[in-house]
């Protein structure tokens, strides 16, 4: 879903870049206050995983592929704002070094995938787990659903931006973008659930969003 140059209008690219910088500033300010020193390497590994896994395009329909996004996963591992920083680092490098995502659309891509996907998916995750028992199975299931949702939501916002830019009418862009990402999101849900499941198995302390039910020591 990395938008190249030329598809989204300048006002939208500028507006999204401003929002992205605002969230970036908030994330930096918060990390300065609360980021634990031991979390720093996890920031690096999360970025490495997102980058590597985003290269693994899987077929979703005839002649169409999709790839992992990772915004919801890193939000669960590190918190939504630290997760945003990880996504931003990956998206900047993809654009500058790998020509994946246009430079003028960088703000829009960070907005769509880092903010809409990451914070939107995380919001749904918190809603889903608000009242449910804090069990591993519930956590993993909520991860899968929120990860799927994060991709569909980001793709839908991308369609709105294309429509506002006069690139494709909303009545065409929205169903097409949402439709194909409903399928790609299934991959997102599976990968996110598998990774979270593995992490809860070996290092549950590295999953920030995981707060197990109190047990007697």
């Amino acid at each position: 879903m990395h938008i190249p140059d030329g598809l989204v209008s300048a006002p939208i690219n500028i507006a999204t870049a401003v929002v992205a910088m605002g969230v970036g500033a908030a994330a930096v300010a918060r990390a300065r206050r609360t980021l634990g020193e031991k979390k720093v390497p996890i920031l690096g590994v999360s970025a490495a995983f997102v980058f590597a896994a985003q290269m693994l395009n899987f077929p979703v329909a005839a002649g169409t592929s999709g790839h992992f996004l990772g915004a919801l996963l890193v939000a669960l591992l590190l918190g939504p704002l630290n997760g945003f920083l990880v996504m931003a680092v990956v998206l900047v490098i993809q654009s500058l070094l790998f020509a994946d995502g246009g430079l003028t659309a960088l703000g829009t891509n960070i907005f769509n995938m880092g903010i809409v996907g990451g914070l939107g998916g995380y919001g749904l995750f918190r809603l889903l787990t608000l009242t449910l028992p804090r069990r591993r199975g519930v956590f993993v299931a909520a991860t899968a659903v929120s990860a799927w949702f994060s991709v569909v939501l980001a793709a839908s916002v991308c369609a709105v931006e294309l429509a506002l830019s006069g690139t494709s009418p909303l009545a065409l862009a929205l169903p097409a973008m949402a439709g194909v990402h409903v399928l790609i999101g299934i991959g997102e849900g599976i990968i996110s659930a598998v990774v979270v499941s593995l992490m809860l198995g070996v290092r549950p302390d590295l999953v920030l969003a995981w707060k197990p039910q109190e047990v007697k020591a």
Partner: protein
Amino acid sequence: MKNVLPFLPVALGVCLLLASFLAPLASSSPDGLERVAEDQGFLEQAEGNQVWKSAPVPDYEMPGVGGSGIATALAGVAGTLIVFGLALGLGRLLVRGRGAGKSRADRQAAEDAGGSISR
């Protein structure tokens, strides 16, 4: 929190394996957005409009390497290490220069060191 150091090489190793051995096998079909752009005829709007033309590794293929599988693997390994280093460096920068014992994270670290939390 337990020590993260033993976890690090394993996790980074997995990422490098994904980038080097799986990435060359990935589907080369257009992704969701490219598919829609093609179907709805606005893909050409992007063609020739690329603003930043000096990306050293365009399309995740290391230039000057014969065999696209190897070029993809090298691009994957390079990118994985670069984002790892950058995110790590950013984290270090954010943590550094903070008064010890003043942040919530440091208090948490002190608590963990005392072993009072068994997560």
